[in-house]
């Protein structure tokens, strides 16, 4: 008997939201025992959540752009047709290839995709094994490549269960009222019988291998839960509005039945492995079971996958696995590195996942190779890509169509081929989008939008809108949205999200809220994403109480969304509820361990609570997790290090390449301050286009590009080690990658307004209340913004105080900027006679 064996069992679409109530009712006793004896947690999926892509990421540790499996179907090598995805699409090595190379023995059963079987050391029962025609007359012998080694075909073919063999005794536990169904009119029983037979075939093959073979690694894949969910989740309690009551009564137990039967099969599986075996059970994604369930599928590519939820499940037991512990932040791409580490094998540096060290009692040391792909030798791979017959897999195609994963290829085969090619390209673009590789995603989509009918290009435009919003390119977003509205399509998009995001992005958050409120009332307020976006808009408007209410509602409706908790944490900081903020940030991290924003917000909360050491760790984690430079986190770390080193001092040291900004509301003394800095020896970034006038006889010291900083802030590098004037409303457009020292000029608001009235030729004695209130809001916003920008240090100087005591002001400025200044010149530049518009 082999030691250190590892068994991975895939339960497609299994979801804790269904599992926990069943465990509580004693209906999944075997899984419950595993949870008690091992670790369990969420399994984070990837986008797009299409199962063959995901299960390929599980066994390669790589994202689909690297492993090449990009959808449910693929185009044949000779472009003659399309077929369900096969091993031929995969271009990266799997764990079983690596284990083969290292002399280990692996068994695979039903892995998606695994046909045609690879000649590995062990047994491969491919995902084609269980797919048989519903019509006994059409049944054919098992195709070459279905089982490796071929010598096992005779033995295993008799383990296939045919749908006709399913009896009422098999069906009634899932659908107790099956007898009420008029099968002439309602084919609702058909999926249960077919899917059950297929999964029993897989289980038969798995139990045969477990009983009769020696192995080191074994992987079994079941699609029972996923397929039952696609057919019957809309009938699962609580009853959805729009579902027929009679249908609900008949099918309401089907999904729970699938989970219970899966647990029964698990019990038998575990009886066939010894206590030295490590067992992992996992799903690739969850499945919507609440209000977000879809009754009617929209006409988009792989529409059925819209029911897939972000989190699947993970459970592991074994001699080296911790007991009764919850683990956090696992992702699908972590499984392959973890399997390799279990077998003491090095992890490829080109793998996207990490070893899930926290599941082990005594983790093995992690070793690395650059890439397993470059290593020469026998990896048990197929020598030549097999030429497979397009019509040979009619059964699988038919099932994918019935499940809603693919459209029925209609008309000419070349159209089906072309459409599949477009779908796969779009999937690749979406993978790049998920990895925030926007330029690659855009490149593909810009090609796709040139397609002509019968290709529906609307979804490509929708993806381009999403990318433009991610890139904060609101003009392009608006442009693509306009084009999307003009193309011919049957798909109904929820465009209000994009419209609101554009409005929010261009600073019209109040309008964005109006759009969202309208959409909310149309949807009876049950969409958490709408609440989240309302929260974002209120947050940027400085309405933190309203934002709080909206975020809390989003979390209430969907508590598993990490970004909702992170946003809530960020808002709680503004409300000065630092402990609660830290808690919300930690909840976010529990859900998605590698979520840099959540770590950063946790750092801010801990920083505010005075826990500098842990705040520093949180900032460092945030910085490490971001592929690009996370300037804010790095600046926050510098600030903390400074605080830790300078606890007894209250000085602002010079920051390398700092930019000195003079800001304030217009007419609050900013030009005077620029003059002081200039005379004090600080270089000024100005184009002198605005000439001195009666209002500012010593000049404005302005720089024209500042006015369009919201479109282009690339000129900021020119301001390093200089000073530049930026009025208060534009501060938020400063690029976070620089360090700023901001001297913010305060002046009695009545004086500011009066001075502006004069400057614009209006009556100074008329007080525009609206303007005054807008200024007050603006000042509040600056205060909140400053607090959230670690690269920003800001002091307030009062205009009147500077005029009355310029020496004191010069001292403060020199200390704040952190460089030696010509203070005499600064003091002499202050001209008290310019203080004219007193309140």
């Amino acid at each position, binding site marked *: 008997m082999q030691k250190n064996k590892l068994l991975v069992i895939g339960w497609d679409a299994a979801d804790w939201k269904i599992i926990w109530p069943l465990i509580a009712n004693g209906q999944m*006793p075997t899984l419950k025992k595993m949870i008690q004896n091992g670790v369990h947690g969420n399994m984070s999926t990837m986008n797009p959540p299409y199962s063959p892509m995901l299960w390929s990421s599980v066994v390669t540790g790589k994202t689909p752009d690297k492993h090449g499996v990009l959808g449910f179907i693929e185009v044949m090598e000779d472009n003659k047709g399309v077929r369900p995805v096969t091993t031929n699409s995969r271009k990266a090595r799997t764990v079983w290839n690596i284990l083969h190379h290292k002399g280990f023995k692996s068994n695979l059963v039903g892995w998606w995709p695994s046909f045609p079987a690879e000649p590995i050391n062990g047994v491969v029962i491919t995902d084609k094994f269980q797919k048989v025609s519903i019509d006994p007359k059409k049944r054919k012998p098992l195709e070459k490549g279905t089982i490796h080694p071929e010598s096992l075909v005779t033995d295993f073919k008799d*383990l296939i269960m045919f749908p006709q063999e399913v*009896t009422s*005794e*098999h069906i009634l536990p899932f659908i107790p009222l099956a007898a009420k169904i008029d099968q002439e009119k309602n084919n609702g029983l058909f999926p249960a019988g077919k899917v059950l037979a297929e999964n029993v075939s897989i*289980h038969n093959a*798995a139990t045969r291998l477990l009983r009769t073979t020696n192995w080191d690694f074994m992987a079994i894949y079941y699609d029972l839960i996923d397929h039952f969910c696609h057919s019957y989740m809309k009938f699962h309690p609580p009853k959805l509005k729009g579902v027929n009551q009679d249908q609900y009564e008949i099918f309401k137990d089907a999904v729970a039945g699938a989970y219970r*039967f899966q647990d029964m099969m698990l*019990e*038998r599986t575990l009886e066939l492995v010894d206590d030295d075996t490590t067992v992992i059970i996992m799903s690739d994604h969850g499945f919507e079971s609440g209000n977000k369930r879809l009754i009617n599928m929209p006409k988009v590519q792989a529409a059925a996958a819209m029911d897939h939820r972000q989190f699947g499940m993970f459970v592991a037991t074994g001699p080296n696995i911790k007991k009764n512990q919850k683990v956090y932040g696992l992702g699908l791409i972590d499984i392959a590195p973890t399997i390799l580490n279990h077998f003491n094998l090095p992890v490829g540096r080109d793998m996207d996942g990490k070893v899930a060290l926290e599941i082990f009692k005594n983790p093995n040391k992690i070793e690395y190779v650059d890439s397993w792909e470059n290593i020469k030798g026998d990896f048990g791979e197929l020598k030549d890509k097999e030429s497979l017959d397009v019509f040979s897999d009619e059964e699988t195609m038919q099932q994918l169509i019935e499940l809603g994963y693919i459209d029925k290829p209609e008309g000419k085969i070349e159209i089906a081929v072309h459409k599949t090619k477009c779908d796969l390209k779009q999937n690749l673009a979406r993978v790049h989008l998920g990895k925030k590789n926007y330029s690659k995603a855009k490149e593909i989509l810009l090609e796709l939008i040139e397609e002509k009918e019968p290709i529906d290009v609307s979804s490509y435009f929708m993806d381009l809108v999403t990318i433009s919003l991610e890139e904060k390119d609101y003009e392009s977003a608006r442009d693509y949205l306009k084009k999307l509205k003009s193309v011919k399509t049957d798909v109904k998009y929820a465009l209000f999200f994009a419209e609101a995001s554009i409005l929010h992005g261009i600073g019209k958050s109040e309008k964005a809220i109006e759009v969202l409120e309208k959409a909310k009332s149309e949807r009876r307020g049950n969409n958490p994403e709408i609440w989240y976006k309302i929260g974002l808009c209120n947050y940027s408007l400085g309405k933190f109480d309203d934002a709080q209410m909206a975020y809390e509602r989003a979390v209430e409706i969907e508590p598993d969304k990490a970004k909702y908790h992170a946003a809530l944490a960020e808002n709680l900081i503004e409300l000065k509820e630092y402990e609660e903020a830290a808690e919300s940030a930690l909840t976010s991290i529990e859900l998605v361990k590698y979520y840099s924003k959540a770590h950063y917000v946790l750092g801010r909360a801990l920083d505010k609570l005075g826990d500098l050491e842990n705040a520093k760790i949180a900032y460092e984690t945030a910085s490490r997790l971001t592929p690009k430079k996370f300037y804010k986190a790095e600046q926050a770390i510098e600030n903390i290090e400074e605080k830790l080193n300078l606890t007894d001092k209250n000085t602002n040291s010079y920051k390398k390449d700092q930019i000195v900004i003079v800001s304030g509301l217009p007419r609050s003394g900013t030009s005077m301050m620029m003059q002081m800095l200039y005379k004090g020896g600080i270089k000024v970034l100005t184009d002198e286009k605005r000439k001195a006038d009666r209002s500012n006889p010593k000049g404005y010291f302005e720089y024209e590009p500042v006015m369009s900083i919201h479109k282009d802030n690339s000129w900021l590098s020119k301001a390093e080690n200089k000073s530049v004037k930026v009025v208060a409303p534009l501060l938020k457009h400063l690029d976070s990658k620089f360090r700023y020292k901001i001297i913010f000029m305060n002046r009695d608001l009545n004086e500011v307004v009066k001075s502006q009235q004069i400057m614009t030729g209006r009556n100074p004695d008329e007080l525009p209340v609206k303007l005054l209130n807008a200024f007050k809001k603006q000042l509040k916003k600056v205060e909140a913004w400053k607090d959230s920008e670690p690269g920003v240090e800001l002091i307030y100087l009062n205009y009147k105080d500077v005029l009355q005591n310029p020496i004191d002001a010069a001292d403060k400025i020199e200390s704040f900027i952190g460089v030696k200044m010509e203070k005499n010149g600064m003091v002499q530049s202050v001209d008290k006679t310019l203080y004219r518009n007193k309140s």
Partner: protein
Amino acid sequence: MKNSNSNIEEKLQIELSEIPLKSNLGLLAYGDIAFEAWREIKKKSIKANPNAKE
């Protein structure tokens, strides 16, 4: 990893000849041995009564 509270184990106490013709989920969950035994029983039943429906 044995589970003594299982319906399946109860079923296993039954002689193969006692496997019901219509089978049940417990038998299916038991995997290959029970499945093949059930097939045998179906075959025997058809042999004994060729006109009967499965």
